[in-house]
């Protein structure tokens, strides 16, 4: 599977390994994200899913392995450099700027593409490109009606939406979403899932999620991790039928 040299591979991790002392949190994981695909990573608690995402985003250093983004080797690039190249990340816990308005949250995120910090005499909001991009993602995620409210006071589901909106504001090729459905109600989950289906065509999406029903609904490819290693990989149907997965993860459910 690693030998394909497909043009559509936007993010590739090879032999990704992270050790914390004697503990191997992620052990020789290979992963490829294709444009237009939702790739889900599932696994029990402590399987190393979040660590994997952080290795790809550059938040945690690799002990071993290699990361390629859009054909470039970014193994030694800092997180912000990978972000500038087109890697967006949302967090499991909300990491929005609570004190700022919904709009300013998106605008500040969009500004990352047009930073020009030396233009100190210019009002930040007069930067048309970042303002437009912010409005674009606010409309796309349906947050217009609350865009002027401080983001700290909006509902949890709206915060999760804002989290994704901020992620999209830099127009990244790759989206790494760490449990975007965490704590959401059924309606909100459905809305988020259809939103992910909608934006799928323009992005490669890596999804770490606990909600199995949701994953089987939207994921094109599923990777199953146990104790830091990949034990299965394939479409939803394939993974469901995989014996190792049944034993290790789905357990009595299967």
């Amino acid at each position, binding site marked *: 599977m690693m030998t394909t040299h497909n043009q559509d591979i936007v993010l590739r991790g090879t032999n990704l390994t992270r050790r914390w002392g004697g503990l191997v949190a992620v052990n020789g994981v290979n992963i490829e994200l294709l444009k237009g695909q939702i790739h889900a990573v599932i696994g029990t608690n402590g399987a190393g899913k979040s660590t994997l995402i952080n290795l790809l985003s550059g938040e945690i250093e690799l002990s071993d392995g290699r990361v390629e983004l859009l054909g470039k080797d970014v193994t030694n690039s800092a997180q912000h450099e990978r972000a500038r190249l087109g890697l967006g990340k949302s*967090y499991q816990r909300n990491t929005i700027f609570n004190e700022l308005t919904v709009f300013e949250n998106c605008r500040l995120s969009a500004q990352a593409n047009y930073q020009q910090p030396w233009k100190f005499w210019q009002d930040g909001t007069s930067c048309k490109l970042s303002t437009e991009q912010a409005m674009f993602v606010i409309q796309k995620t349906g947050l217009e009606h609350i865009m002027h409210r401080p983001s700290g006071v909006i509902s949890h589901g709206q915060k999760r939406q804002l989290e994704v909106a901020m992620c999209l504001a830099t127009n990244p090729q790759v989206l790494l979403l760490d449990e975007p459905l965490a704590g959401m109600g059924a309606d909100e989950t459905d809305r988020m899932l259809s939103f992910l289906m909608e934006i799928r065509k323009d992005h490669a999406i890596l999804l770490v999620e606990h909600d199995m029903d949701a994953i089987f609904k939207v994921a094109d490819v599923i990777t199953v991790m146990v104790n830091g290693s990949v034990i299965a990989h394939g479409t939803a149907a394939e993974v469901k039928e995989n014996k190792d997965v049944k034993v290790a993860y789905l357990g009595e459910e299967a």
Partner: protein
Amino acid sequence: MKKYPVIFLGCLLLSFAAIPLFGGDYGIDWMTKTIIFGIFALSLELLVGRTGLVCFGQAAFFGIGAYATVIFSTDVAQPLVAFLLPISVLLAALYALFVGALSLRTKGVYFIMVTLAFAQMAYYVIHDTPIGGGTDGIYLYVKPNLPGNISLNSSLNFYLFTVFILFSVLGLLGLITRSRFGRALLGIKLNEQRMKATGYNTYFYKLAAFVISGAIAGLAGFLFAVKDGYVNPELLSWHQSGAVLIMIILGGLGHLRGALIGAFAYNLLEEFFRSEAIFGVFTKHWHLGLGIAIILCVALLPKGLIGLPSLWQNKLVGKTAETPDDNDQVSSSGSGH
């Protein structure tokens, strides 16, 4: 939302105009000193209030600016502001670049301690080597001239010059706050991890803020040296770093006017507790009174002195006033003074 900054600027202008008319020489001297500390406090506000970096070594930049002013004017018949001001600002900025480049690799308490260590290092270099003249300090015999041979010997000229510098610094920081750079700094203060994930090189942003802050502190040091005509190592001591930190906390973090109000309040309190007319023989224990007063202020006013108006408003109008007030807080911290 813009109500308070406008009221504040009005009061500031009025008091600046009133001092030369009614304050006499003593008033001018006191106000000049207070404005210099106001500029010093503004430099730290950029770090603590805007970027979330608690620097406990700000006095080093202040002291370096002050010492540079004196050292570079010793062999000159008539020193010039046009030379001394840039050189003292530049040297302070260079030291800030050095300190910032190393200390910004740490966070939180470690950052506080590392900046303190670097400031103490500068203190001992000035204190124990020949360049600084030791504990005795050095005198500035001739005050520098402004372009056009305007002498700063006249306390009124110097006062007006200081006011001019204050408004320049306020204007610069006001512009920075609303610029893309300033907004990114606020983002770093609120959530640095998110800023990194979005694509900001937060280390660079923090370093830039640190150098600008150091430069402004150096500018305040320059003014201080010219005002007093004398520098000593105590300008760089941790007491000074602590005092300026107390000023901005006393005034209220997150607003430029907080730093100025804090500097005014601190100097007023000091003046009060050092007044023999009021305290007689207890005047020599003025530190105690000042300390207690500051503890009371900080304990009773968690948002600092700038939180007073909204506190009164809440008391008078009742709980209903809380919601619009919170909105004001949020939007002004995003975009205003």
